[in-house]
């Protein structure tokens, strides 16, 4: 790692990178031909090629968002991004078949170990393609489908054709258009009616190459009365040049289904993370986004739920951690379209060393949505005077019977709290780490234990050497 890069990102523990052994690598830059080449390479049906090209044209025509962090957004050079890079022959179901260096990477990240101990299924994506996927036999026997998205398109073309872009159309925003044009990899998950997947399934996303663009596409369909907990993790090496991660995730929770989607985003500080995540919740179903943003230079991400039918429930718990040079612009969107729907948003952020966290939220209650319940709570914690926190909560309530609760707070770590903890034998850094872990506790307690302790360790490490 160059000194520049070290200075830029501090002690990011996943910042190692492997030699790049590409089997296919596209030249930098984006054009209609690049889009067509990706589609052709994947041997896709014509309709998918057509959507990609339309999306590309929309991406070009659509202006950059003028909100969030325009300065950072406008500094992205789309001509200096590699839009497709493949480092393996295909997606394996046995780690032994995965190329040695890639396998080593995922071993360092603890994925095969976690898979054995507590996961129901795993996909691992490296650059543009999923290199490994597997699912427990018992889940497969119950009809659970867990594939990478490209295999999903090949094996379940009708399903993909029906749902692809139905929740997040390419025209939704500039980056959903970009993703639709150049998507590659991601997860395809179907839970059959009445099946409860007890162990979480996990997708892991790794960017290894410099100036890489990763554009995975995920579709999860929970049939009536089913349930699943899907977890994604992401890391990248530390480079002084930038990478771009722009995913689209679509969830469909049918009647009485329950989807929980947990993210621990820990990109290195040279990654732009611009992601569109949205779910549609049908009658009496629940969609939960548990969304942790620790890394990246700029994240703009607002997991959304459309409460389409009566009795549907949305739950969004998010935390954001912004250190030096980082901006986490995160939040949530919920649309109440039906009566007796409810939503609860809890957003917590910590800013340190000049980092910036923003909560940006939108809750819409349509005129027909009687007796809805909405709760939005935003808490920000500032660790020093240089850091910044902003809250942009928007509520558009068009039905008088709706009960809305909204609380927002900004606080600082008090000297008295630190003194109290230090008087119990803890150093100032340890004390700060404890306060921070406590602040994020409403989030971490929703994660599987293994993830929660990993996250706590991560935050404690962020505190090391940070107090002078």
């Amino acid at each position, binding site marked *: 790692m160059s000194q520049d890069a070290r200075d830029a990102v501090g002690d990011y523990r996943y910042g190692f990178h492997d030699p790049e052994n590409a089997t296919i690598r596209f030249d930098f830059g984006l054009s209609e031909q690049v889009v067509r080449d990706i589609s052709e390479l994947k041997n896709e049906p014509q309709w998918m090629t057509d959507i990609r090209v339309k999306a590309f044209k929309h991406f070009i025509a659509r202006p950059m968002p003028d909100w969030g962090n325009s300065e950072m957004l406008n500094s992205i050079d789309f001509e200096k991004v590699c839009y497709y890079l493949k480092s393996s022959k295909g997606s394996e179901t046995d780690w032994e078949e995965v190329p040695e260096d890639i396998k080593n990477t995922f071993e360092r990240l603890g994925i095969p170990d976690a898979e054995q101990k507590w996961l129901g299924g795993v996909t691992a994506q490296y650059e543009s393609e999923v290199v490994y996927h597997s699912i427990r036999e018992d889940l497969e026997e119950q009809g659970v489908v867990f594939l990478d998205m490209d295999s999903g398109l090949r094996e379940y073309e009708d399903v993909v054709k029906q749902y692809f872009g139905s929740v997040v159309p390419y025209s939704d925003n500039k980056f959903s258009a970009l993703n639709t044009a150049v998507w590659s990899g991601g997860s395809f998950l179907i839970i059959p009616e009445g099946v409860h997947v007890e162990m979480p399934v996990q997708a892991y996303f790794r960017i290894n190459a410099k100036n890489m663009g990763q554009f995975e596409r995920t579709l999860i369909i929970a049939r009536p009365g089913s349930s699943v907990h899907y977890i994604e993790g992401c890391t990248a090496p530390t480079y002084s040049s930038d990478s771009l991660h722009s995913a689209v995730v679509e969830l469909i929770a049918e009647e009485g289904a329950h989807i929980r989607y947990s993210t621990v985003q820990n990109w290195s500080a040279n990654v732009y993370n611009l992601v569109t995540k949205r779910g549609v919740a049908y009658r009496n179903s629940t969609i939960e986004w548990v969304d942790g943003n620790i890394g990246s230079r700029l994240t703009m991400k607002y997991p959304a739920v459309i409460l389409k039918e009566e009795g549907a429930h949305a739950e969004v718990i998010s935390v954001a951690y912004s250190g030096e040079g980082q901006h986490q612009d995160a939040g949530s969107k919920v649309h109440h379209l039906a009566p007796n729907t409810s939503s609860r948003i809890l957003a917590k952020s910590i800013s340190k060393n000049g980092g910036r966290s923003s909560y940006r939220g939108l809750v819409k209650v349509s005129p027909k949505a009687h007796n809805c319940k909405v709760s939005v709570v935003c808490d920000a914690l500032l660790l020093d005077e240089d850091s910044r926190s902003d809250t942009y909560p928007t509520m558009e309530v068009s039905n008088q019977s709706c009960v809305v609760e909204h609380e927002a707070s900004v606080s600082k770590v*008090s000297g008295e*709290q630190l*003194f109290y903890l*230090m*008087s119990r*034998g803890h*150093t100032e850094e*340890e004390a700060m780490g404890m306060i921070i872990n*406590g602040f994020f506790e409403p989030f971490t307690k929703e994660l599987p234990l293994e993830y929660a302790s990993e996250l706590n360790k991560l935050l404690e490490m962020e505190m090391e050497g940070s107090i002078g």
Partner: protein
Amino acid sequence: MHSLMKGILAPHLENMLTSCVLSISDLHVSVEGTVVIKGLSLEIQKGEVHAIMGRNGAGKSTLANVLMGHPDYEITQGSIHFNGTPLDELEVFERARAGMFLSFQYPQAIPGVQVGTFLRKSVQAVRKDDCPNNRELRDEMKAAMKILGVDNSFLARYVNDGFSGGEKKRLEILQMLLLKPKLAMLDETDSGLDIDALRMVADGINSISDDAACLVITHYQRLLDHVKPSHVHVMIDGRIVKEGGSELAIQVEDKGYDWLEPTNA
């Protein structure tokens, strides 16, 4: 120590030869430019229980805070030694690890941090030399919680978050029992307690090791009915104006503080 040697050795060397836990010499302390302690000297030996009494504003809590190392308090003159070590060489956490403990008048809430986790981490930080394993610690916790009349659900709550006054003080004493300090300082631990809670907190204080020294800060004598002090000091306006045995606490209870005012003396 032989009386002939007294005064020949430097104070901290004297401390090393005796069982002196805390030695304060001519201490002056100011807070944000205001002088609050104006020349205070005090020695506490192993096993002794000292009470410092005085009205609000006499400088009692300042003394507790300065002993523990609160950054807002500045020592302008004098010295403090703990087991022979000059205190100004020790950071707050090092004081705790060396065996000092302060039961706070206003314990801080740490939302999201469970009492059980906090106790375990604190024991691990402070009792490095005789750190109990998980099982031993669980047994110690059980025994201490029994004395204080708190049940297991206490451990799952967040530190002082939404606690009543009595619960906060119980948690302070619970920490004290588990951290096994050599010097326990209790700042107004009796305030805001009902009679049952007071008795349990007193039982907790009385059950610390006979070797430990104890400094009880209070502005009334209630707690001293249950925790017998070997020495009582009365503090007025930043100085100790009167010293005695436990009978002094009773005199103060009867007569108040006015008769001890320097101008009336």
